[in-house]
């Protein structure tokens, strides 16, 4: 039986994926925090991806496949920590993959790496430049991780590596920034803007990762869900009320709140509430015959308060 190592296994998405893969693979995982009550048969190591102990896990477990989703996605940590953990952690992981005979690697990137701009075409393919850091420097670590992993595909062609860029992930277990945002009672938006947004259910994301592993995919792939709706529709369907605020007011206001730790999103995130960032998932579907099981209504139902 093949052995899969999942980084970030204690997160909502990691736990789902571990359970999903358990039937087919021997599963082990690492995370910075423990997974209380993890299922039998899944070994969970509490390590920092940047430290030597992480390499010990590779040496002991000798996984044949690795799913890398151990990223800090929130902005609560001290400045620079998020970047260091995400980028240097990825670098370490890639090195270990080359040294310990890993054959199959899936890196869980993000659809945000393209950036939100007025000139964005609809349904961007994987060849679009990754411009997120132009207007949203706080997530440049995600762009750097994606770039590191994409370069790895070409440097080590004998390791089957795929980089997945899913659209907004929602679900009952996953802790996504967009999920927290939609779960608010009154959801601030930018007045006069209502971009189309794509969503995908956490279970479908697990399915996509599993398919990437099974097919031994190599390359960069957008992973898209059942479709797109305007932001305000998404908010209402998730049980919230949109609270449109004028932009000249909203920017300085939220910037201060964010600096004081009272608001979880940097102002760069506002552009994602203004301009569409829609991806084409055609390449992934062509490669794997992926079909998502959860429709938009079920997706919004899963984050209803």
């Amino acid at each position, binding site marked *: 039986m093949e052995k899969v190592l999942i980084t970030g296994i204690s997160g909502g998405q990691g736990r789902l994926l571990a359970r999903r893969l358990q039937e087919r693979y021997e599963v082990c995982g690492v995370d910075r925090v423990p997974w209380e009550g993890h299922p039998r048969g899944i070994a969970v190591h509490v390590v920092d991806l940047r430290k030597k102990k992480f390499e010990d896990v590779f040496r002991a477990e000798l996984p044949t496949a690795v799913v890398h989703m151990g990223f800090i996605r929130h902005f609560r940590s001290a400045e620079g920590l998020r970047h260091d953990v995400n980028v240097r952690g990825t670098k370490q992981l890639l090195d270990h993959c080359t040294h310990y005979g890993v054959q199959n690697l899936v890196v869980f990137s993000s659809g945000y790496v393209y950036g939100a701009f*007025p*000139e*964005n*075409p*609809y*349904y*961007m393919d994987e060849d679009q430049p990754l411009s997120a850091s132009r207007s949203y420097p706080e997530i440049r670590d995600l762009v750097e991780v994606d770039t590191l992993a994409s370069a790895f595909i070409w440097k080590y062609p004998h390791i089957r590596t795929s980089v997945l860029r899913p659209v907004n992930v929602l679900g009952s277990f996953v802790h996504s920034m967009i999920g927290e945002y939609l779960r608010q009672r009154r959801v601030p938006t*930018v*007045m*006069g*803007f*209502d*971009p*189309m947004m794509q969503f995908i259910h956490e279970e479908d994301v697990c399915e996509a990762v599993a398919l990437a592993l099974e097919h031994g995919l190599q390359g960069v792939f957008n992973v898209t869900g059942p*479709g*797109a*709706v*305007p932001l305000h*529709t998404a908010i*209402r*369907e998730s049980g919230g009320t949109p609270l449109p605020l004028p*932009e000249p007011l909203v920017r300085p206001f939220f910037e201060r709140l964010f600096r004081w730790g009272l608001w979880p999103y940097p102002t760069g995130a506002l552009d994602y509430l*203004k*301009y*569409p960032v*829609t991806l084409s998932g055609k390449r992934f579907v062509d490669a794997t015959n992926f079909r998502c099981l959860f*429709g*938009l*209504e079920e997706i919004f139902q899963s984050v209803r308060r």
Partner: protein
Amino acid sequence: MARRRSRRESSALRDLFGAFLPLSVRDVGSEIEERLRKVPTRLNEFGYDAFGLHLDTVRQAAVPAVLLYRHYFRVETHGIRRVPPGRVLLVANHAGQLPFDGMMLATAMLMEAEPPRICRAMAEYWIPSIPWFNVLAARSGVLVGTPENCIAMLEAGECVMVFPEGVRGMNKTFDRRYKLQRFGLGFMRLALETETPVVPVAIVGSEEQQPGLANLPRVGRLLGMPAFPITATFPWLGPLGLWPFPVKYRIHFGEPLRFEGAPSDEDAAIQEKVDVVRHAIEDLFTRGLAERRGVFR
């Protein structure tokens, strides 16, 4: 539950409001609804297509457009049957300071073409950054004019209207009316790539709707606008000074043109094909101008 109730209330409000509208306006509303029902679109369970088009919004936005179409510009169309079914590029002249010509062409395709079509317009890159307007535009079928978007639309079999003169045409001065400005080449490359027929369209009337005396693009740039026209009424009457005179519109559709060749050809080769379209529009101009009785009637 609360959501459903509020929806019902808002529709009741709409009915109440509707009761006070003149009969002709209500007729227009139901007529548009009738036409929209025949439009082939792919909408999701929330009523939006993949690019943000929303038929309810189109219906509401179309009411003033149809009133302008019938009673203000009194639009006449010639040869609208020539527009083939399936993917098609409508290439038209652009004039008149504000894009009423685009609005009237789209209205013509909705109200007079068989079956009715919703024109997808390719807009300037700064349109999505204008609050409110960007939402209205997206809901009624306007997209940012990137090549990717245009190809996606054509491959979906949509009717796309383009104004290759762009701002150059819209803000030209009165002495250059009915003289086509330089055409962009992009539309032809896309037509070749997607093997899309091109229908030349001449809009007679818009060129006189708001005669430009001068254009001060530098002042425009200071104000974040692509142009700053000086007309008899603008900027002296404020933004209202751009409102068009009640000219009569005559929209002439030409025979569909089909082109063959490599979309990556050098500019000179593409330019030849673009000139064919350009001359076709000029011919339609000549005919349209000779036939018309006057600017306002």
